[in-house]
């Protein structure tokens, strides 16, 4: 199920602006990799290039290579739609489809894939909601609008929606930044469970969160405003937080800046 991501010397541009420069890293399957760094350092931008969501923003393009196992995500024959069906994404603000019920939200991706059989849909909706630790809370109101749930529940609904299509990789862009501490805890527990099945990459502003949930941590930084963001280092989370190789990482971790 889960696959490895290999990034080689990736530059990201918006129009003529170079947002991220020279990133190379490997994301291990069935593990959680956290991206940390100050605002504007390009970590979210870089995350979006992993499923080509940066192309949604006008002028967004990349140079370099991203491999999912042996598939080149940027090969000319590769359709971004296929990439996104393989690599799912959860956003900063919960974004369930407001006009759809809880059930339809989870089933949305499956329906896009042409799954019509009611039994199959029922089964996957249930297992996805269970997988997102939401089933017991919503099983009696599957036909109610998804927008009626609390923020934390909505975010878990979005996670259920993303895992329903059985992606290889799950990208999370600050998934807890709009949530209260209790809901955050629920999502973090969920991430711990999901990593047995998926490769997970999470962007977070919260260093404690990175320390709690991730196996490996990547630190991004930028020299100055207007300069492109760079990957400073990536290593085991315990090492990054206890004994980083780079001075900049240590400064950031210890709260000397950022």
């Amino acid at each position: 199920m889960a696959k490895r991501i290999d990034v080689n010397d990736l530059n990201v541009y918006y129009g003529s602006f170079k947002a991220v420069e020279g990133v190379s890293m490997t994301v291990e399957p069935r593990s959680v990799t956290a991206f940390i760094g100050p605002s504007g350092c390009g970590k979210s931008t870089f995350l979006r290039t992993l499923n080509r969501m940066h192309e949604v923003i006008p002028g967004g393009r990349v140079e370099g290579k991203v491999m999912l196992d042996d598939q080149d995500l940027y090969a000319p024959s590769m359709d971004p739609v296929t990439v996104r069906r393989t690599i799912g994404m959860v956003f900063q603000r919960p974004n369930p489809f407001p006009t759809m019920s809880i059930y339809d939200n989870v089933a949305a991706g499956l329906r896009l894939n042409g799954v019509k059989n009611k039994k199959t849909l029922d089964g996957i909706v249930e297992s996805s909601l269970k997988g997102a630790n939401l089933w017991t809370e919503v099983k009696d109101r599957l036909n109610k609008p998804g927008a009626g749930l609390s923020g934390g529940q909505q975010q878990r609904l979005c996670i259920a929606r993303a895992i329903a299509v059985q992606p290889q990789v799950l990208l999370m862009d600050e998934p807890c930044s709009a949530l209260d501490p209790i809901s955050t805890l629920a999502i973090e527990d969920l991430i711990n469970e999901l990593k047995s099945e998926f490769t997970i990459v999470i962007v977070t502003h919260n260093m404690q969160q990175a320390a709690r949930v991730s196996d490996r941590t990547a630190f991004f930084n930028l020299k100055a405003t207007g300069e492109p963001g760079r990957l400073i280092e990536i290593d085991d989370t315990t090492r990054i937080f206890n004994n980083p190789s780079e001075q900049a990482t240590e400064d950031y971790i210890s709260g000397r800046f950022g």
Partner: protein
Amino acid sequence: MSSVTGVSATDELPGPDGRPPLSADAASTGRVGDRIFGGAATLSGVVVIVLVSLIAVFLIVQAIPALADNSANFFTSREWAPGGEEPRFGILEFLWTTVTASTLAMLISVPVGVGVALFITQYAPAWMRRPAAALVDLLAAVPSIVYGLWGLITFSPFFKPVQGFMEDRLGWFPLFSPTGISGGTIFFIGIVLAIMVLPIVTALSREVFDQTPLAHKEGALALGATKWEMIRTAVLPFGRPGVISASMLALGRALGETIAVTFLVSALADGSPWTWSLFNGGETFASKIANNAAEFSNPSKTGAYIAAGLVLFVLTFIVNSIARVVIERRKAFTE
């Protein structure tokens, strides 16, 4: 955003801080400025309500005596002889012509208008959006008499062979049976009306499609939706109430459109046989009243026309109520 049904997609959206929109007066402080502004707003609201009520009262009061004198059935008769000792008049023909021509206009303009709005907001390159939108809006600025002229002089000869073709091939179907009338047929008027209301549908639909939150669009794309699938899962559902509002506003315009229709209609001769064909002529409410303005010589005659106007008023009212119900039913899902 205002709309004929009084609801729009944005009404129910929470503010940027995630709180629900403030309900009326919850924020009033009782200071002078607040009281003046609140008073002025309330006054405007009351004026509109009073105005609509007065129009309804006017129509009813003027129509009742004429209706009481009418010796034909007002709803099922096709006669129109409101003068004389024993006035006989019925609205069946106008009702049929008005409703079918407007329905046809909707069948054409809503899909096309939504398509144009989707093109402008989702597909057109950035440099093209503003000019394209402005061009469509310009359609709305064309006076209706110009549509009438254009329809009569330019479009009518062009449409004649199309009608002939349809009569030949589809004439077996009652709606398309040949009538011998060409020019201002119901079908033709429906098309001209469709072009006239197109900018209304387009402008309002464009407005709501543009407001689709990026988060919803990205949500769909991240699931592996193609562009069209993204539009279907995120943009269209979000814009649905707005499109309904737009369509009703357009329908209201089509039902009441006067000048262009008056210019184009082929009035039927008295006693011509009933046909279901869309290639028949016939007056609409508005064109009948406008064509006969010179006849308002005595109260009973005038009353007959006012009664026809009243039916148009009620018709528009019903259409708007239906739209309101349709939107309300899905309200829980538009938050």
